[in-house]
């Protein structure tokens, strides 16, 4: 049995956990003092040695990303924190920032020092106003306490932090789209190369990291690399937040070492709702191919999940029991991707538009067998051919669900209707008879 390891979440139940005083009472900003006494290059080396991998989904080694920055040329370089948490199922950064915003601010200060940035940005999605309040306050408190601003802790290091609110666009979670958005443009992904490390924000070297990655930095600096590498698996080091949601008895945030299995997590979370069987789940948000109960013992680390045919992603474990119609679930996700496609490239813009229409038809019971093939063909036309990963993500749930639950698609077609009672999957009782499902707007 793997133990839970509350590091980031350790102070969340403290009184006014978001306040600077609470944070410092628990040793907050100690790591910053320690970091400012180190050489930036040593900090980068430490994070490299820790094996910390990006917690935003792609899992790119964080230290390596920092190391890509070209040598200092005396001109500005930037740290941008990706706090645009929008991947369906993902809900780890928002509670982190709501409960312990200083963890992030301290991480920002240490990272900025390490990469030589004097201006950092936290790009928060705009749809969480109270989180924005907390972040703004935390930054203000940090300035007032001398953790930010000029000559931090007397080290001579200056840092400004701007907390920026987005305005509702999933695509801004893609790092280059986020940079365009932060520059006041439409959040559409940029061509790579040049990569942000070379030409990022305002065409200057930029590091873009996820909230959880940055928030993990103070503990690595504070407690040491060995402490961090002691957790996790060989190539997936450290701990991370596992967000359980859906038909599970006790949904929520479980901070554990990478490599924990869903079976273990599910046990801690009191099993599935009413003891019903697990039907399918996402290991890391809706863009990752679906898993079933066959994968309960797959270690949740980057390699094992990848080997099993999916992606660890954001560790957003959405669990669905056998009352759930997989076609309905997939249709809704596809509508999401259609709604959130930025429109830049043809495959994603037109492909999601088409997929949504086919799926809606199948779910309504008007589909044909040819439609299932068309779904797969259209997914093939998108996968690997879209400009960014959004298009690829849109196909994951479709191709994996057709592979796993083709019979359910066929049932919809043969019966001319959805074979499921939708009210059964809800958490509350209601009479599902009166009105048919409305199509997503």
């Amino acid at each position, binding site marked *: 049995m793997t133990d839970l390891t509350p590091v980031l979440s350790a102070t969340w139940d403290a009184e006014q956990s978001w306040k600077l005083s609470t944070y410092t009472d628990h040793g907050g900003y100690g790591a910053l003092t320690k970091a400012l006494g180190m050489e930036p290059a040593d900090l980068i080396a430490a994070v490299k040695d820790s094996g910390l991998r990006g917690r935003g989904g792609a899992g790119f080694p964080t230290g390596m990303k920092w190391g890509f920055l070209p040598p200092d040329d005396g001109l500005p370089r930037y740290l941008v924190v990706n706090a645009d948490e929008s991947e369906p199922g993902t809900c780890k950064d928002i509670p982190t920032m709501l409960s312990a915003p200083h963890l992030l601010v301290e991480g920002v200060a240490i990272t900025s020092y390490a990469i030589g940035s004097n201006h950092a940005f936290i790009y928060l999605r705009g749809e969480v106003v109270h989180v924005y309040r907390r972040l703004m306050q935390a930054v203000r408190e940090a300035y007032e306490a001398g953790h930010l601003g000029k000559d931090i802790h007397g080290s001579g290091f200056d840092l400004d932090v701007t907390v920026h609110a987005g305005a509702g666009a999933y695509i801004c979670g893609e790092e280059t789209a986020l940079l365009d958005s932060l520059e006041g443009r439409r959040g559409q992904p940029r061509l790579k190369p040049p990569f942000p490390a070379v030409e990022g924000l305002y065409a200057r070297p930029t590091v873009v990291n996820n909230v959880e990655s940055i928030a993990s930095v103070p503990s690595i600096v504070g407690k040491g690399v060995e402490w961090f590498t002691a957790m996790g698996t060989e190539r997936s080091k450290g701990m991370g937040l596992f967000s359980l949601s859906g038909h599970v008895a006790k949904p929520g945030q479980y901070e554990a070492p990478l490599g924990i299995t869903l079976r273990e997590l599910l046990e801690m979370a009191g099993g599935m709702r009413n003891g019903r069987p697990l039907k399918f789940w996402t290991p890391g948000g809706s863009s990752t191919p679906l898993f079933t109960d066959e994968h309960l013992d797959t270690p949740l680390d980057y390699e094992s999940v990848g080997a099993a045919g999916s992606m660890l992603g954001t560790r957003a474990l959405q669990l669905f029991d056998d009352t759930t119609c997989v076609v309905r679930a997939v249709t809704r996700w596809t509508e999401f991707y259609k709604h959130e*496609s930025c429109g830049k490239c*043809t495959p994603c813009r037109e492909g999601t538009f088409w997929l949504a*229409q086919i799926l809606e038809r199948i779910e309504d019971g008007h589909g044909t067998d040819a439609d299932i093939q068309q779904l797969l063909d259209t997914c093939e036309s998108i996968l690997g051919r879209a400009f960014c990963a959004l298009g690829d993500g849109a196909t994951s749930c479709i191709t994996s669900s057709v592979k796993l639950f083709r019979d359910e698609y066929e049932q919809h077609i043969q019966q001319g209707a959805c074979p499921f009672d939708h009210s059964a999957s809800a958490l509350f009782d209601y009479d599902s008879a009166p009105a048919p499902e409305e199509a997503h707007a």
Partner: protein
Amino acid sequence: MTSTADKATAETVDTVTLTIDGKETTVPKGTLIIRAAEQVGIDIPRFCDHPLLAPAGACRQCLVDVAAPDREGNVRAFPKPQASCTMQAMDGMIVNTQHTSDEAKNAQEGVMELLLINHPLDCPVCDKGGECPLQNQALSHGRSESRFIDVKRVFEKPLPLSSEILLDRERCVLCQRCTRFSKEIAGDAFIDLQNRGAMQQIGTFDEDVLGFDGYEPIGVAAEDESGRAFSSYYSGNTVQICPVGALTSAAYRFRSRPFDLVSSPGISEHDSSGAAIRTDHRRGTILRRLSDNDPVVNEEWITDKDRFAFSWQNLSDRLERPLVRGDDGELHEASWPDAIARAAEGLKAAAGLTGTPADKKAKGVGVLPGGRITMEDAYAYQKFARVALGTNDVDVRTRTASDEEQEFLGSTVAGSGMGVTFADLEKAPTVLLAGFEPEDEGGVVFLRLRKAYGTQRVLTVAPFLSRGAEKLDATLIQAVPGGEAAALASIKGAADAAESLQAEGSVIIVGERLAGSPGALSEALRLAKRTGARLAWIPRRAGERGAVEAGALPGLLPGGRDATAASARDAIAKAWGVDSLPESPGRNAAEIIAAAASGTLSGLVIGGVTPSDLTDDLAAALARTDFVVSLEVRRTDVARYADVVLPVAPPSEKPGTFVNWEGRLRGFATAIRTDAISDHRALDFLGRELGADLKVGTVADVNEQLALLGAAGKSERVKAPSVKAGKARKAAGDELVLASWHLLVDEGALQDGEPYLAGTGRTAVARLSPATAERIGVKDGVVTLTAGGRGTIELPVALTDMADGVVWVPAKSPGSWVAQELGVHPGALVRVKGGI
């Protein structure tokens, strides 16, 4: 053939060698795969890619299979197909296109299918049908039947973006060529992507289209004083580069199909850039003009005026047969021989060549060729004047002009061959503009300067920063008209501007307006000498440089020879096979008109001059002159006073040469064969009838002579001007100094008959600085300008950050015909009154 010089440069350029479809090719480092493929003759389908725009990678049509060596040098295939329009070629790369890779073929076919699901099946009514990249590629790479059985996206169609440009959003494939052109090339970001995802579309900020709730229906949002949203001078290029029929022009809408059209290459007659165009015509009528690809001049871009202003030549007042004034005082159609005979007879009398006692009373003939003629025509006019009429009274400059300018042109411009080029402009670290607005007066010159945006410093001597200058991020060296010389003189050694100009390759551009500012051209020469910057003269009209080369100025003989120098005259006389050339100094255009008006000229030969463009009262002069011969394409106001009117061909119906401002010969052939003849041919007839064989009957004749004459030798040259810097007039009371220039789209005669183009022009306003406005008691509303001339100009005021004591109005925009109404050139004082 590779010369040694080429080899040398090839060695200095880093190259990479890659294999495309089994063909090995070597290209400069940084070349995109799609370009490299083009070079070995492999066509990869594409929509968003355009060689002159930054890569976008949006349409994904150009996906190819790529394998490249990794760090260890093992060639490894990319896991997914790559966009060849965004990926640079690498050494050792192996590229397989749709011709050799199923993966690439599948990818392209998949994208094609997706592009077509929402594309309407309206090719039969689409203007692009028949020359549409999407149609072609759908045919060659697409499925024969659509698998899409669902609901297509529909939009209202068409949506006018301006009076000229129409948008059909259903057809749009969102390649963003138009928005990228507008932003990157023209600097007019009036259109952009709107909405998101499947509902994404191109557009202006239009509340109704985008569903914004306004306080009141105000329609398309205002972008400038004109209130028009897409009022870019270059908007027509977006139609040409649109790979589908999403952007079309109102002028060409439903007029024709590509297979109807005969395409002839040509050169635009609208400005001195010499932009290469394609004239598409059907049954003798021009239906549209397109930009041609000429990398050294206009690249692939032309102005909207170049593109859309061609209907002037086919209006109902087009002359087809000669007209001769009969005894009844009316003009009657006549045969060419009759008309020529009559013209010759009249001119003989006026020039005193009849050999009768009446010759003593003859006061001579002046020749006014206008500024839009070809070099061949200009040569014919001046030779006609000097040989057939025995006078130096010939001047192409029917605009503001001075002796200083003539000296400047003779010493610096004429016979100097290719000087500063478009490429030099692009490379110049600093460009100083004096009396020249590149966007309004230079057409594609502006685009070349804009191309260097960010790497080039632009300085402009002007009363205020025009929109064009703003788009170049220009630094203003403020000067009141008339005070340009002082402004140029003030750029002294240590000054910031002077330092910039000293950078190797810097250029000073002077415009024709500087002729009206005493000492300015002399100062420009001094500044060039002082800083080492090169000097370029960019006139506004297409024929000016050619006329200067051909010697159609009173003091200039062909090749830049000084007409007052005996050696030059002798050389020319010998070449022409005549005894001598007239010695008396000729009069310039204004002086010729003044002489005619005062009755000291007996005859005028006039061609291509629009009376309303002149500050002088040409009508009065013509009325007073005994005998007037007019050579015109259309029946203009001049015909009212002409005794003989000879119809001549517009540029599309004749061959000829425009010399652009660079000094580049821009020869063009006849686009449409008609019976119309060139000015030079008409003058050749007339010359013979007057007893002089001018040998200017064909373009070849003229060019042969010009080649033989060559450029002036040192002793034949005109001396450079050295005129003391003049001072700007002092504004006093309600008298302000007039500033003015022609906007690109205005009411010039060559834009007649094209309402859609006119609709994109900027509304005329009178610009005043806030301080000046306050001083003369103008708040807003309308001001009236008078200059004691023939009329007044009433325009709405636009308060502008500009020099005090100055009022700016456009030279010939609707409601603002400066020359005709005020009768003064910029720099003069005009009375400005407000409060109407």
